[in-house]
């Protein structure tokens, strides 16, 4: 198969899969819907509420959050020049969690409000800036500083949770596993603008990430200021990861695996990598959530388990049948 055909096929199959999953997810669940879901639009019935008030935001949320996490993973691996990088690793998720907890613990806002999303984005962005400011410019310093800051923030968040008397704050530990069950039309509406801004910013830096892959010196020689690029990239990551964490918690593995799968399909060029990572990220999360909520009804399986179980074997198979997309410098 030629490169061109494979690229075209990857995009077509992804879009069809998303449409298919969207339809299936709306019609499947504990409540069996008898009519066509489209005939239920605007009606006030149990079926209509089930489909459009409960399932729709959850499916749409899975789509946009999956897409955001896929893009975030690709940006993180590009900006850290490290195949093991993901936004969680450099503390953006812990920063977002901490921001949320601070908002709740100080009484500024309660769960499911706009101030929570803002707190999460703020926490992630501050973490990003802190990492940028503290990290040495060279080598693995950037990544290692991020890991160190991440562990500090996780501990501080844990301390705040144990010390706080606010009711319900302990249930925040659901974030450790991730769940889409709390999504509603309102919360999806609140996080969407941030994710959109993050995706736009990510595409804005995507071309530069290709040049940046050659190293800081080569990037400078070609007119890309590596420090400035890192700043834009981590801000994009904060916009993509913060809202996702505030709404559904940390979802394991997705940001790490999706870009690797995509690179093996269409190569490493970042524009294509980012766009297809968005599509594949959406597919993985939609499929994972569908399985999580339907396979052992009425119980839900933690989402992180499914994303790992789905994603990891796919990666192993692709690594077996395809040649490496990322070589080490040994």
């Amino acid at each position, binding site marked *: 198969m030629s*490169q061109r055909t494979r690229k075209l096929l990857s995009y077509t199959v992804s879009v069809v899969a998303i449409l298919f999953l969207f339809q299936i997810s709306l019609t499947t669940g504990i409540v069996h819907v008898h009519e066509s879901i489209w005939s239920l639009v605007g009606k006030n019935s149990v079926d209509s509420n089930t489909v459009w008030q409960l399932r729709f935001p959850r499916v749409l949320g899975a789509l946009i959050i999956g897409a955001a996490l896929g893009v975030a993973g690709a940006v993180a691996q590009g900006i850290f*020049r490290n195949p093991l990088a993901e936004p969680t690793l450099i503390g953006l998720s812990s920063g977002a969690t901490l921001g949320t907890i601070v908002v709740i613990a100080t009484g500024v806002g309660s769960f499911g409000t706009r101030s929570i999303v803002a707190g999460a984005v703020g926490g992630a962005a501050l973490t990003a800036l802190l990492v940028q400011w503290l990290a040495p410019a060279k080598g693995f310093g950037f990544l290692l500083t991020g890991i160190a800051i991440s562990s500090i923030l996780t501990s501080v968040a844990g301390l705040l949770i144990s010390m706080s008397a606010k009711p319900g704050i302990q249930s925040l530990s659901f974030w450790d596993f991730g769940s889409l069950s709390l999504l509603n039309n309102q919360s999806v509406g609140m996080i969407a603008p941030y994710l959109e801004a993050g995706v736009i910013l990510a595409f804005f830096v995507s*071309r530069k990430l*290709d*040049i940046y*892959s*050659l*190293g*800081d*010196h*080569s990037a*400078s*020689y*070609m*007119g*890309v*200021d590596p420090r400035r690029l890192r700043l834009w990239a981590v801000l994009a990551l904060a916009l993509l990861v913060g809202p996702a964490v505030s709404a559904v918690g940390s979802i394991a593995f997705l940001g790490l695996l999706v870009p690797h799968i995509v*690179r093996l399909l269409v*190569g*490493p*060029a970042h524009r294509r990598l980012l766009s297809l990572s968005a599509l594949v990220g959406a597919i993985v999360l939609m499929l994972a959530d569908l399985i999580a909520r339907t396979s052992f009804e009425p119980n839900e399986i933690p989402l992180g388990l499914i994303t790992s179980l789905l994603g990891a074997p796919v990666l192993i198979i692709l690594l077996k049948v395809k*040649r*490496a*997309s*990322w*070589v*080490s*410098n040994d």
Partner: protein
Amino acid sequence: MINVQGLTFSRGERTILNNFSMTLAQGELVLLSGENGSGKTTLLQLIGGVLTPSAGAITFNDRKLSELSTTEQAKVRAIAPARRQFTLAYTVQEVLDFVPKNDRAAHPDQMIESLGLRDLLERKVTELSTGQQERVSVGLALMQEADFYLLDEPFSAQDQGNTQNILQLLTALKKTKGVLVISHNQDALRSYFDREIMLEEPY
């Protein structure tokens, strides 16, 4: 004109460049030679703006390097560093396309031909030999439109035939551009160059 005046650079106790001056004008092909550790690559990094000198000044067409942004510097000079490392499996064509369309040199086809990259365009750069990767690296620099081209060890992994081809390409390039080549293995090549700058250890 690239003008380097009284450049001094130290790393820790060691002075690598001491009050060093040179020029590079459009229309000349210059060889920069010197022993290992004589500061050739350091000089390139200073001109490339990734190191800051402790004394002295560098100007591009009468504008101070320190006052130019990273983007502005890239429009004046293109640099091929030695042993550029390719870690992601881009095709050779994708690597050459790193240069945004508006910043590309006028006639890349001739360059691609001379560097023997034509048949490699669809190959993954990570799967090429060291010599082939070196030519891709030179190609990436020559793909950029600029007044000056600075190439660090562009022949270190090339056989005689390829070295000749690259030198002929650079000779054609110097009609309108200034070209500086860093090489420590220069005896057979001297005749191609308009002049040679020898870097010696300061002590």
